[in-house]
């Protein structure tokens, strides 16, 4: 059972609350804590548990559905999609956005593509060590 307790919101997170909920659900699904086909908490359940408005959770669920992370069936509530590969697509898009922003900044700083790539590899190795 996917538990509302798996989601914790932060007041210092600058993102709107619905995006925080989306981000957390995507992580839970990507890591497999919320398995494919698993029943999601109902919108009202999650709203009560997080003490946020129903409309906020509803919006998060709608956008998660649009991104193909969850499916909602009339009368049955929402569940995590069966094919987990599909839910990684938003991550790819997000990564691309970050890379575009990085490339722009690098150009502003007069950095060559090689220099940028070098830094990226360095950072990648550092974080790989951290998560080990």
């Amino acid at each position, binding site marked *: 059972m996917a538990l509302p307790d798996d989601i914790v919101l932060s007041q210092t997170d*600058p*993102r*709107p*609350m*619905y995006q925080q909920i989306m981000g957390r659900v995507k992580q839970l699904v990507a890591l497999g804590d919320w398995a494919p086909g698993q029943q999601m908490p109902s919108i*009202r*359940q999650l*709203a*009560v548990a997080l*003490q*946020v*408005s*129903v*409309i*906020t959770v509803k*919006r998060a669920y709608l956008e998660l559905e649009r991104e193909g992370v969850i499916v909602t069936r009339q009368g049955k509530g929402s569940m995590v999609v069966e094919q987990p590969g599909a839910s990684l697509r938003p991550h790819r898009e997000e990564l691309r956005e970050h890379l575009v922003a990085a490339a722009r900044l690098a150009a502003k700083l007069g950095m060559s593509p090689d220099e940028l790539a070098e830094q990226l590899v360095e950072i990648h190795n550092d974080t790989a060590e951290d998560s080990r």
Partner: protein
Amino acid sequence: MTTQALRLVGLEKAYPDFKLDGINLELPEGSVMGLIGPNGAGKSTTMRILVGLVQQDGGQAFVLGRSMPSDQVAVKRDVGFASEDMRLYAQASIRWHMDFVRSIHPDWDENHAQALLQRFDLQPHHKVKGLSHGQRVKATLLLALAHRPKLLILDEPTVGLDPVARHEVLGELMDVLSDTDRSILFSSQNTQDVEQISDIITFIDRGRLIESQDKESYLDSWRRLRLEVPTSASLPELAGVVYGRGKGTLRVATTNRFEPAMTQAFQSAGITVQSVEPMTLEEIFLATVHLSRGVPG
């Protein structure tokens, strides 16, 4: 059509130095409306009309489908009301107050009342005079909740509460909403509370309704843009965009009609958009009041 827990049509009430000026408002069943506005905006007057403590001069108020004040006996059975300035009897105990309210409310649910005592950590034999502010607020809320009202009207329910009590109170309000047909109207100076639990946000200023909208699209329509304006470029006139004062290269624009195309409009005017930031309800509240009063932000 969804059932409306509340429907106000051209509601008016005049006092010597204040006028509630034709308020139109709808609250669908099962949702939470947060009422915000500066002190003296007309929030309390509106709520008092809804619970029959004040009678309007003009316009109509329908509460749970019934007309106020003509159907007020029936309305009061299904409405729970608590206000910040409500006084309990200092010499009497919480239990005494519970018995009193129970004697006039046929729908009083003693099991629910007991559960609320526990959740709010209140001792029924304690006299009101010995209670802290937070305990008094919770006792008042208990008295408003124990008959399981269909509509809860709360004037400043969280004012002066410590973080723990505030969390308990908000949690209890959200619990009310586990039932899909129960609704809440509450006012608060604390925009964070309103932002957190409301489905609909309603602004009132100087007796007038400024805005009443679903929270998500409302917050979404507001953005602050940080702009880098080269001396060769000039700021374009865009609908719904207000520029902050300042003359330098770095400027700030605020808008209540944001759409992604806006960024392109700036870029084609030769202006770099450094960032597009969402705004908190508090920031939007200030901007709205300034805008409606014609004061530049």
